[in-house]
């Protein structure tokens, strides 16, 4: 089962894909930046500060998506006894952490002109900070524990506890009175955001997703070479 997920086969693809992903990322990011900073309109209430949304929202979305993927991969690795799932999860984590930091910092910068404060212990911000701590603990666990079986067990446990926080982040704006507004974009119902703002948001999200793919490919290749280095030592 999962023979297509053998590292040898994946390396053949990942080692060649990085340069194409890099070119595509630069192209999409350039379009996204022009759309976000020049072509998209200013908000009638928030004026130009609304442009921060184009880096803040994709950062938050992708950090949540990556953590969910890490949890799914860790659980799958544990259920199917496939070590490669853990390797993929580990390679996704650095970009997830950076997107989480981007969401927190740009949110803080956006908060100052909008709410008059850099930070508030609001439900959405606090739960995002908790996610950041989970990312940090997850990455630290990989550094601290050398025993593979132990690290697989511990990182899976961290993701199980961490995933409880993901729906809390999503629904925090509905469950509590927070400074954040309710979701403007809904997949199942009509979005309240205008298409002139939705388009740059989608482009910037695509650019961020491509960047996380690029980092994942590079990190995954590094991890595979690390394993091969150990293999050469055993020869």
């Amino acid at each position: 089962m999962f023979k297509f997920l053998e590292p040898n086969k994946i390396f053949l693809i990942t080692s060649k894909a990085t340069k194409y992903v890099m070119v595509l990322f630069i192209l999409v990011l350039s379009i996204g930046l022009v759309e976000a900073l020049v072509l998209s309109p200013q908000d009638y209430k928030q004026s130009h500060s609304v442009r921060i949304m184009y880096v803040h929202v994709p950062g938050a979305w992708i950090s949540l998506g990556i953590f969910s993927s890490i949890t799914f991969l860790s659980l799958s690795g544990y259920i199917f006894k496939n070590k490669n799932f853990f390797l993929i999860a580990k390679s996704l984590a650095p970009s997830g952490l950076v997107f989480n930091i981007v969401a927190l910092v740009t949110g803080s910068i956006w908060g100052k002109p909008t709410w008059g404060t850099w930070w508030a212990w609001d439900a959405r911000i606090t739960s995002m900070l908790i996610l950041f701590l989970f990312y940090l603990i997850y990455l630290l666990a990989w550094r601290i524990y050398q025993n593979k079986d132990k690290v697989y067990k511990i990182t899976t446990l961290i993701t199980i506890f961490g995933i409880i926080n993901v729906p809390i982040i999503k629904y925090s704006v509905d469950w509590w009175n927070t400074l954040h507004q309710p979701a403007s974009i809904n997949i199942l119902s009509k979005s309240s955001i205008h298409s002139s703002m939705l388009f740059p948001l989608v482009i910037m999200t695509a650019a961020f997703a491509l960047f996380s793919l690029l980092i994942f490919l590079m990190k995954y290749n590094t991890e595979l070479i690390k394993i091969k280095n150990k293999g050469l030592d055993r020869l």
Partner: protein
Amino acid sequence: MISEFLYMNGYGLYVWSAFLFTLLSFSILYTIIKIQYVKERNKFISKFGALDSKKAQVAKTQNINKEILSSTQSI
């Protein structure tokens, strides 16, 4: 015109710092991952070069080793 674009009705400092922070974070992450990649690859190449001919033959039978040695990509 340009100063108006940079000033953004007084929100320029916030908008530009948010975008610059994002791009700076991306650059730092990319550089760290790239350094790690190059370090491991160089380690692999030097280890492979240190193998005697018999061990090198065994190592060469694995496709992934050949791929690592032949990957001269500049990401």
